[in-house]
């Protein structure tokens, strides 16, 4: 292997940083570094035509590979003057010159000299640092005794030795109020209460800080706080996206993330379960729920789309997201052409896609025990009520006891009903096909002779089934098609519709049949139930034999139940030859059947029956022969249907409607080996231009340290978080670093490729990556390591000199200080107001927002504002609608869940000011906060109340006590507003949001609102 055993030269990168910060020009007499000096020049000026992209490659020359560069004569190691590259780069002849003049690219004199020197020194290539597994660097020593004393862990040695080299010193440690606020916001996403802060400030234990860290890491809110950035990566949302943007149920995946993080599930396992939990041996329910990660892609439900086209786009998204999260690589370019800079060919890209492309995408029903218990209870009630139905039967008139007359009436009616049913019921013989072909879905015959469909479906599915008629007992007179429910189907089937129409719906357009090439003619058709979804057309059985594809049979509204359709033949078919039945499913959305069965009858009176199959079977034998149990079963069915009991059944129907549904979630299920989904290379990345099929696999350049290249999704997942992948740990620690410090050690959080900037602290990055893996991929340990460093504990107030030298704090001489993320901001204000609910998990909720936000979205769904506790849940439980994101979060840069977000913006805008000042949701917090503070201090001596209240409001929002000036400003403001409220210039009831509110309370509301808008309130200090 070319790059095996090579070491990346970190000191060079450090040297570059030295030069940047001191402004000193690098001395060119020093040795030339490929990564630092040459690779960027070649990449910028040459690779577009002489790089990895074979489509654009000129003259068969690759300069990104030493072998090609040397064998072509472009580079003659040690002999720059014989190297064509040097001749061309130095040439002024427009015909010879490289890059050619039309490229408008300039290789400067200095760069030219560096190229010459590099070739003279042997033209050594080095692998890109990020493509070589991290080796644990030794933390550098600190010579300064004061720094030695302040060092808390190895992180500080990396950061401060670097600072010392720059002639900078770390800021002093932050005060304790700042520390507990910073730590709480970072670890659990909530501010400390003033009491918690005071306890910490007074705590004299030398390990007080570490104990605080421990407490917060064990808080159940830790998982809620850290789920949010992961959900950004997972592009989590509660709606499908695109036009209709209907709700989806995938919150169990969100809860899985919270639970896994709280349990400190090792990151490798955490990753494997999300990518391929379904493929783990004996996969648990939780492991299957975890595969929701890649089900967070959008689903276009617009009528008329090609569903497979949007499935392709979802796959593109899955490849990109996997690349960003576990590889730190931007693979997107290679969708359309080979990557220009990183060695990912277009085929490599589709091979990556193939690794992820072999899953079906069902809904998983979760057998929630609470719901099961509720259902059992209700079903018991229903059964008891049904048992009592005979007692409600209208009695016959005449003599005898009421009971007797009732019994007689029931028996007579039941006997009449049974006879009427029996007249149309005929025995059916299941037909088992010997051959099944389709346009795309895969059909499989189950034990009961029913046929189950898997694989991909389209807007026009055709099932062709072939049956041998030999051996049938008599000439065939009718065909029955049963549409059957199945737990594996959307909404339990019987159809496979999963977008646009109702979940589990189907639409059978036409049924045609022939025997040995001879068309079979139908005389009539009947169905047990027919209703269409989307549209005003009929859904009658006859539609399937009318020769018109746009009409058909459908059973919308009764998903999860069996239905049947019977076709009577004009002429009986003799029991010989081969019967071919073709089912056509054609609509503006994909809606073929998921489970169905065909049977044959041999008497002309066959009709479709609404009765369940078991009752039909019983009715076929004479009623005298029924066992008591059989009789009971048939009678129960009669009682459920007879119009005579319609009124009496109402409470039963009501109970049935109130049966709580089991929650569902979206998962991956790997396809069986005999039904693999092929993956093709798509010319120019276009869905409509598939080319040759590709084998699943990882790009070769990442496999330098791999024994056994992964060939399926599970192996791929395992490889991604193995030590053989040089990137996963680096990317993960970089994300964590970014969460704490506001920027990653690698600035481009999702891109570690050759075009990304070098890390600010390369050795620290690698040390953390190694430490992370050595500590069993424990995220909590990683977080503990970071927050217990001295670097994290520094004050964020910088001296003017520091600010000038390093305005962005890349060198980390100061502690982090940045605006809170949207959700943490709201949560912090909710917590301060005393309203915050501590409930964890469950379906998403709808806190208040202006009606105009959702009015812009498609459809008539209104935002049904939650009441009670759900109004005040943590923000990660807010229903996330992709086409109408929650306004107060969007304005603070929260993503919409449309694509993987490794890095949020952190803007600072007037619209944010308007939101925090005027949004009714935030005003409600201010009102609650003031009311609570006023209530709590009601018993305090009058002369202390004002100070107490101002201090309390301030501390709930900012943690630290106010200075005298601040206190004074608040009190003055409150008094002035109270005075205006008292004299009627302002309305206290409106301001305080409650009738009968006093001017004093209203003035405190105004004060709380002002403090909520302070810069310090909205930042992590």
């Amino acid at each position, binding site marked *: 292997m070319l790059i095996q055993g090579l070491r990346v030269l970190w000191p060079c990168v450090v040297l570059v940083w030295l030069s*940047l910060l001191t*402004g000193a020009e*690098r001395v060119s007499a020093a040795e030339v570094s490929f990564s630092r000096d040459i690779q960027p020049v070649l990449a910028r000026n040459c690779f577009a035509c002489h790089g990895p992209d074979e489509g654009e490659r000129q003259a068969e020359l690759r300069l990104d590979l030493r072998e090609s560069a040397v064998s072509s004569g472009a580079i003659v190691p040690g002999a720059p003057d014989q190297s064509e590259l040097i001749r061309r780069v130095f040439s002024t002849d427009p015909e010879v010159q490289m*890059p050619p003049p*039309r*490229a*408008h690219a*300039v290789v*400067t004199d200095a760069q030219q000299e560096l190229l010459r020197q590099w070739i003279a020194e042997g033209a050594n290539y080095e692998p890109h640092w990020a493509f070589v597994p991290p080796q644990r660097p030794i933390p550098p020593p600190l010579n300064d005794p004061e720094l030695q004393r302040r060092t808390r862990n190895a992180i500080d040695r990396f950061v401060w030795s670097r600072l010392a080299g720059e002639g900078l010193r770390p800021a002093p440690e932050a005060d304790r109020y700042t520390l507990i606020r910073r730590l709480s916001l970072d670890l659990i996403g909530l501010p400390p209460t003033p009491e918690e802060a005071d306890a910490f400030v007074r705590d004299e234990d030398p390990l007080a800080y570490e104990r605080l860290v421990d407490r917060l890491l064990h808080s159940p809110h830790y998982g809620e706080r850290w789920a949010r950035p992961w959900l950004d990566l997972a592009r989590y949302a509660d709606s499908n*996206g*695109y036009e209709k943007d209907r709700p989806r149920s995938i919150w169990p995946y969100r809860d899985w993330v919270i639970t896994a993080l709280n349990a400190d599930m090792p990151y490798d396992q955490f990753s494997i379960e999300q990518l391929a939990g379904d493929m783990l041996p004996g996969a648990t329910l939780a492991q299957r729920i975890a595969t929701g990660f890649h089900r967070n892609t959008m689903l*276009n439900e617009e009528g008329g*789309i090609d569903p497979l086209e949007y499935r392709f786009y979802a796959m593109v998204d899955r490849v*990109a997201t996997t690349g960003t999260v576990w590889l730190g690589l*931007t693979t997107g*370019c290679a969708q359309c052409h080979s990557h220009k*800079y990183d060695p990912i060919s277009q085929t490599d890209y589709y091979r990556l896609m193939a690794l992820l492309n072999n899953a079906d995408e069902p809904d998983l029903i979760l057998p929630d025990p609470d719901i099961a218990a509720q259902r059992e209870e209700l079903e018991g009630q229903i059964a008891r009520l049904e048992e009592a139905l005979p007692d409600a039967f209208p009695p016959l008139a005449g003599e005898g006891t009421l009971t007797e007359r009732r019994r007689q009436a029931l028996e007579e009616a039941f006997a009449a009903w049974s006879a009427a049913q029996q007249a149309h019921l005929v025995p059916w013989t299941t037909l088992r096909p010997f051959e099944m072909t389709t346009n795309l879905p895969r059909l499989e015959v189950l034990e009961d002779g029913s046929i189950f469909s898997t694989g991909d479906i389209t807007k026009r599915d055709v099932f062709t089934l072939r049956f041998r008629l030999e051996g049938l007992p008599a000439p065939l007179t009718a065909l029955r098609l049963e549409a059957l429910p199945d737990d594996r189907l959307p909404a339990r089937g019987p159809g496979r519709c999963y977008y646009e129409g109702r979940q589990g719906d189907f639409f059978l357009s036409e049924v045609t049949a022939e025997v040995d090439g001879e068309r079979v003619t139908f005389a009539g058709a009947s169905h047990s139930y027919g209703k269409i979804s*989307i*549209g*005003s*057309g*009929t859904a009658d059985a006859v539609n399937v034999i009318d020769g018109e*594809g746009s009409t*058909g049979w459908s059973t919308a509204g009764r998903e999860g139940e069996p239905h049947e359709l019977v076709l009577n033949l004009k002429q009986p078919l003799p029991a010989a030859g081969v019967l071919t039945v073709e089912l056509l499913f054609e*609509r*503006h959305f994909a809606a073929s059947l998921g489970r169905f069965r065909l049977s044959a009858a041999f008497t002309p009176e066959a009709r479709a029956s609404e009765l369940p199959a078991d009752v039909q079977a019983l009715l076929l034998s004479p009623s005298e022969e029924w066992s008591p149990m059989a009789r009971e079963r048939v009678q129960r069915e009669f009682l459920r249907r007879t119009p005579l009991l319609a009124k009496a059944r109402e409470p039963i129907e009501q109970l049935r409607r109130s049966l709580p549904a089991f929650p569902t979630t979206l998962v991956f299920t790997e396809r069986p080996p005999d039904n693999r989904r092929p993956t093709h290379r798509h010319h120019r990345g276009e869905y409509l231009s598939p080319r040759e099929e590709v084998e699943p696999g990882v790009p070769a350049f990442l496999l330098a340290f791999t024994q056994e290249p992964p060939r399926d999704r599970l192996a791929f997942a395992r490889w991604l978080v193995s030590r053989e992948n040089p990137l996963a740990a680096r990317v993960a620690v970089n994300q964590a670093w970014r969460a704490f410090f506001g920027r990653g050690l690698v*600035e481009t959080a*999702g891109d570690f490729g050759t075009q990304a*900037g070098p890390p600010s602290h390369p050795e620290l990055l690698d040390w953390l990556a190694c430490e992370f893996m050595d500590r069993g991929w424990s995220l909590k340990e990683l977080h503990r390591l970071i927050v217990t460093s001295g670097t994290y504990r520094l004050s964020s107030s*910088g*001296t003017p000199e520091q*600010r000038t030298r390093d305005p962005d704090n890349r060198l980390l001489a100061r502690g982090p*200080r940045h*605006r809170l993320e949207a959700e943490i901001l709201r949560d912090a204000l909710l917590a301060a107001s005393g309203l915050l609910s501590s409930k964890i998990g469950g379906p998403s909720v709808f806190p208040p927002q*202006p009606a105009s*936000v959702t009015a*812009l*979205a498609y459809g008539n769904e209104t935002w049904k504002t939650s009441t009670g506790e759900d109004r005040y849940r943590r923000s990660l439980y807010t229903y996330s609608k992709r*086409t*109408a994101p929650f306004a107060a979060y969007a304005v603070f840069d929260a993503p*919409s869940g*449309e694509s993987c977000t490794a890095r949020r913006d952190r803007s*600072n*805008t*007037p*619209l944010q*000011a*308007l939101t925090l000042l*005027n949004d009714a949701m935030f*005003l409600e917090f201010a009102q609650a906060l003031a009311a609570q503070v006023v209530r709590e201090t009601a018993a305090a001596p009058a002369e202390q109340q004002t100070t107490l209240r101002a201090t309390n409001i301030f501390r709930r929002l900012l943690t630290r006590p106010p200075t005298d000036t*601040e206190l004074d400003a608040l009190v003055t*403001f409150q008094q*002035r507003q109270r005075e205006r409220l008292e004299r009627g210039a*302002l309305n*206290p009831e*409106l301001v305080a949001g409650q009738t009968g509110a006093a001017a004093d309370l209203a003035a405190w509301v*105004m004060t709380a609102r*002002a403090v909520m*808008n302070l*810069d310090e309130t909205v930042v992590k200090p």
Partner: protein
Amino acid sequence: MSRFDSPWRQTRLGPTGRDLCPLPDEAALIRQTRRHFLADCRIGLGRMALASLLASSPLAARGAGGTSGSPFQPRAGHFPPRARRVIYLFMAGAPSQLDLFDYKPKLTELEGKPIPPSVIQGQRYAFIQPNAAVLGPRFRFARHGECGAELSEVLPHLARVVDHLAIIRSVHTDQFNHAPAQLMVNTGSGIPGRPSMGAWLSYGLGSEADDLPSFVVLKSGGNLSGGAAMWSAGFLPSVHQGVPFRGQGDPILHVSHPPGYDDQAQRDTLDLIGRLNRERLALVQDPEIETRIRAYEMAFRMQTRAPELMDFSQETRWTLDLYGAQPGNPEAAFANNCLLARRLAERGVRFIQVYHADWDHHSQVEQGVRTQCQKTDRAAAALISDLHQRGLLDDTLVVWGGEFGRTPMVEASAALGRSLGRDHHPQAFTMWMAGGGVKPGVTVGATDELGFHPIERPVHVHDLQATILHLLGIDHRRLTFRQGGLDFRLTGVEEHHPVHEVLA
């Protein structure tokens, strides 16, 4: 020096003349400047280059409001602009070009007959089967104005301003479903998540409005398929996202004082916030605090100015009638929005997106088109003549169009209860432009006799976007942004060009 011509950029043109180096994300610019400086040192540009780069960077002094150094600071493009702002009348749902602009008598002749298989082979449709019958134009057409452009009888008002228009009858797109096609027109891609045209322009040119967003979104009619992704900033700094305005009441979310507060209370509050923030700034020295102080001041200015913006009583009766505007009447929402668009244009808003939905006539296309024309024709024409009278048309670009066209074939479906409609037709549709830099009175492009395919001067949606950018002084190939390893631009990766035939 503008962000378009820093020396740094000139060194980074790709071999094909395509700009390999994107305009950097401006937030990232400052963050990464040191890295570039490092690179530039080695290539000999030295510290002077850095200094000038910083000076030209919109974030050299960070800020939020319309103040100097903010991301909205007005910036020059690649060449002198012909238009300074855009009012884009987006007819969502896709109006039938065959019943409005692209007259095809041949369809009348063939009505009821299946369309020739050779024409339709290999095309994908949303709802209809490819053997559907031909449906003739539903209205009479006549020539209008000096230019003699052919318009349907349901556009009587547009007919009066037709000499201002450049009509393009050969627009085509890649997408045949609403959401992706609307996204395609707005963001250059069918997949949600890319920056919209308004965001690109705000990012590229900044804002000329002191107290209004640079990119405003107005909407009337029913559902918008593309949703918020259509005015998203995508991966551009989020400050450039479109701000939805309402046509009545508070134009911007939360721009009114909360119940019970008056101007004085709000002013007192901001004074308190400002005072405490300044104290904090003195202590912590974080320039973000300074930005926040300015953001709050600008918020207050927006609150002060918003009522004036929405005060249609400043308009004469004559103007209101010209548009058919009726403040407060939702039935006149499009007209009200057109008038509001003019007022926003006057106040320097860069990109005003006016959506009107309800053009999706899968059934009864005749009645549908007639109804929507009644709602929109007068106001769209009024916008042109009003801007013209006020001298604003010279530097305001007005664009009208949907996301695709409609089929020459009839759509009918028993299942859906549809008849006499038209399905989606991405192959050809009509749009028009007027104002800033547009050649008036021309008709560009033509379709075949069935109105099926362009046969003359096909104009891809990306060409149209390139044209709009061109009119605003931007070379669409050079307004790029590096994201996920790719240099994204509005107009995608293929070769596209401004439509020179419509340039004055």
